[in-house]
């Protein structure tokens, strides 16, 4: 079904394009939001990706590559948005909180303690946008290193090493926060 929509949208069929958008938009938003940690920036990234899909779809030769292509577009749009935000006034902070609808209905036990979640959140925000993107493609989208390599257009070895460095950086940040918290508890 998706292949048919892709082929028709590539020929300029706007109804088919709408069908594709409705199939893909939530998935793209979930990825953008995980990378950017900001509802509004994620909306902008999704909109940018959707516009690019319409503009450049005729160039996509293999309709079966549509999903991988959209992962590439949303990852790039999100990285670009994060870098723009970092260069903007305030220099570096993606500090808006999660949207109200993100987890208000969930009990903390669903994913561990609230403190756990906040710690991971803090650590993740300190990573570079490219590292956040690769971790999101792996942990959320469930892509393997070869699939990430395909999506990002990089060699498999490079994807593997970037994933390794990103995971290592997140773990190191979490460890550093844990040590800092322990230090505060002792001094208190």
């Amino acid at each position, binding site marked *: 079904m998706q292949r048919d929509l892709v082929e028709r949208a590539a020929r300029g069929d706007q109804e088919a394009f709408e069908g594709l958008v409705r199939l893909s938009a939530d998935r793209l938003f*979930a990825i953008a939001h995980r990378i950017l940690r900001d509802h509004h920036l*994620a*909306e902008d990234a999704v909109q*940018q990706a959707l516009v690019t899909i319409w503009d450049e779809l005729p160039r996509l*030769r293999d309709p079966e590559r549509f999903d991988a292509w959209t992962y590439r577009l949303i990852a790039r749009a999100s990285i670009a948005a994060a*870098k723009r935000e970092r260069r903007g006034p305030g220099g570096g902070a993606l500090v808006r909180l999660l*949207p109200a609808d993100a987890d208000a209905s969930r009990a903390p036990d669903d*994913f561990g303690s609230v403190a756990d979640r906040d710690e991971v959140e803090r650590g993740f925000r300190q990573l570079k946008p490219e590292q956040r993107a690769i971790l999101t493609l792996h942990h959320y989208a469930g892509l393997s290193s070869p699939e990430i390599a395909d999506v990002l257009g990089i060699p498999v070895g490079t994807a593997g090493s970037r994933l390794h460095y990103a995971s290592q950086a*997140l773990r190191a940040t979490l460890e550093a926060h844990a040590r800092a918290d322990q230090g505060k508890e002792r001094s208190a």
Partner: protein
Amino acid sequence: MTTPNEQDRRIAAWFEEPQGRVPEGTIEAALAHARTHPRGRDPLAAFRRDPMGSGGFGLGRIAQPLPLLAAVGLLLAAAVAGAAIGGWFEREPAVVPPVVSPSPSVTPSEAPSGPATLRVDLIEHVGNDAFIEIIDESFTLTEAISGDPGDGVDVEQDLVRVENDPADPATVVLTWSGGTCDTRHELVINADGRTLRMFRGTCEGDSLGGVGHVLRLTFDAPAPAAEFDATIETTP
């Protein structure tokens, strides 16, 4: 202190958090763009670069059957047009780009769907002001800055030396030499982030060689110099 397994579990659980749905307004904006930019079948679509094709440059990019045919066709058409208007035998000399003063550092300004591009003015002490345009198809470059070649460099012509900055494993230093009129350069960082293809304009009538150029590239992760494949070509 948490163990690595505990951390991995926490990270995995955190990624499973729901993130809400995309607002309808975002979808409507994209659909409005499609309505205001209608298009039919693109007859040249087959000749355009596949966005999921290889990120190569030059021959590597056009050496696929259809793009190759398109390129040959375009070259023939250009040759015929050039001959027809009589310009084939009376070409004007190449236009020299405007001179710019060296700037210390530039960071990429990327378009969301295309490669990031930036221009760095190269420091040199002998000839004219020189610059390099950098096209980063890998989106891994975080900074580019000219190094100071001093009185010269000991790199053979047509070679680019790649070394790591001892103080920063994410920074590689490119060094190459040329003539005093080597002012225009282009560097393409392929999507793999490790293939560097440099192009420089023809520098005719230059008797002074040995002008050095140094470019420092900083990436978003450690970039061992041994992983790089760097070439330099002279183009018309």
